[in-house]
């Protein structure tokens, strides 16, 4: 059968690397919560770190974000990150501040 006409080459390798890394980065926080091996604060820190790393793994190995990604896609991604940071950060900041002022 002739090629699909769509100019994208895909190999199995990045998906297997991505799967292995994702499984590792999922197993660590799940195991910590299941066993309660570390203190609550440390476990939360590990959960956040593993999640951030896993997002990067997914972007790199499943969504193939890299140096060959068109620039406008990266700009859109960066813009979304800034937007999310402002909206989520602002929401949490304002609401928790309000909460403390109402409760104290």
């Amino acid at each position, binding site marked *: 059968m002739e090629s*699909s006409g769509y*100019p994208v080459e895909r190999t*199995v390798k990045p998906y297997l690397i991505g799967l292995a890394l994702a499984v590792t980065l*999922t197993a660590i926080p799940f195991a910590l919560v299941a066993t309660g091996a570390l203190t609550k604060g440390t476990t939360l820190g590990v959960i956040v770190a593993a*999640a951030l790393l896993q997002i990067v793994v997914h972007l790199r190995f499943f969504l193939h974000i890299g140096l060959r990604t068109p620039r*406008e896609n990266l700009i*859109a*991604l960066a813009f979304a990150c800034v937007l999310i940071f402002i909206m*989520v950060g602002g929401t949490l900041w304002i*609401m928790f501040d309000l909460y403390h002022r109402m409760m104290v």
Partner: protein
Amino acid sequence: MTASASTMSPPPTAEQYEEKEFGFWLYLMSDAAIFALLFATYMMMVGNTAGGLPGKELFSLERAAGETALLLLSSTAFGFAAVALSAGERSRTVIWLLVTFALGAGFICLEVGEFWGMIQEGAPPERSGFLSAFFTLVGTHGLHVSIGLLWIAVMIGQVLFKGLTAPVASRLMRLGLFWHFLDIIWVIIFSVVYLPGLL
């Protein structure tokens, strides 16, 4: 999209497919903003149980792990479908799309069972602010996955009946973006909702 493909106009160029992919990417970024605000809402509401059951009593680590495994494997299976697509192997593409669909459907079954169990336990969405935020956030993700399943089913049909033509391949690439994106959202869901809830 289908209308322009079926009329007499010349077939789209690679550049036009890139434009379509960029447009879909912009949609995904706006979808990410929606999920981000649902996450912010959930983080605000997580303590507001109104005397009802908290997440610690309602969530199951095993079920969350099962859902995570199904969705991750489904995402990987789609990757293998993309590999088969780029090799131009029609039947292998269909087989991996079927695997993707089956794993995604398994995820939805677990999630529906979880929601149903919570409602039976006296923890429906209207019980507390925490539960409203939980059902909205996780339900919105589940709705996306369900729509993704429908899309996968449609694409299996297109690959079977139209073959791996350029428009079909282009749609499959966008479906792939959507499917992998939903797995990223799930990573944040288990890291924000289930694991801290069960800690």
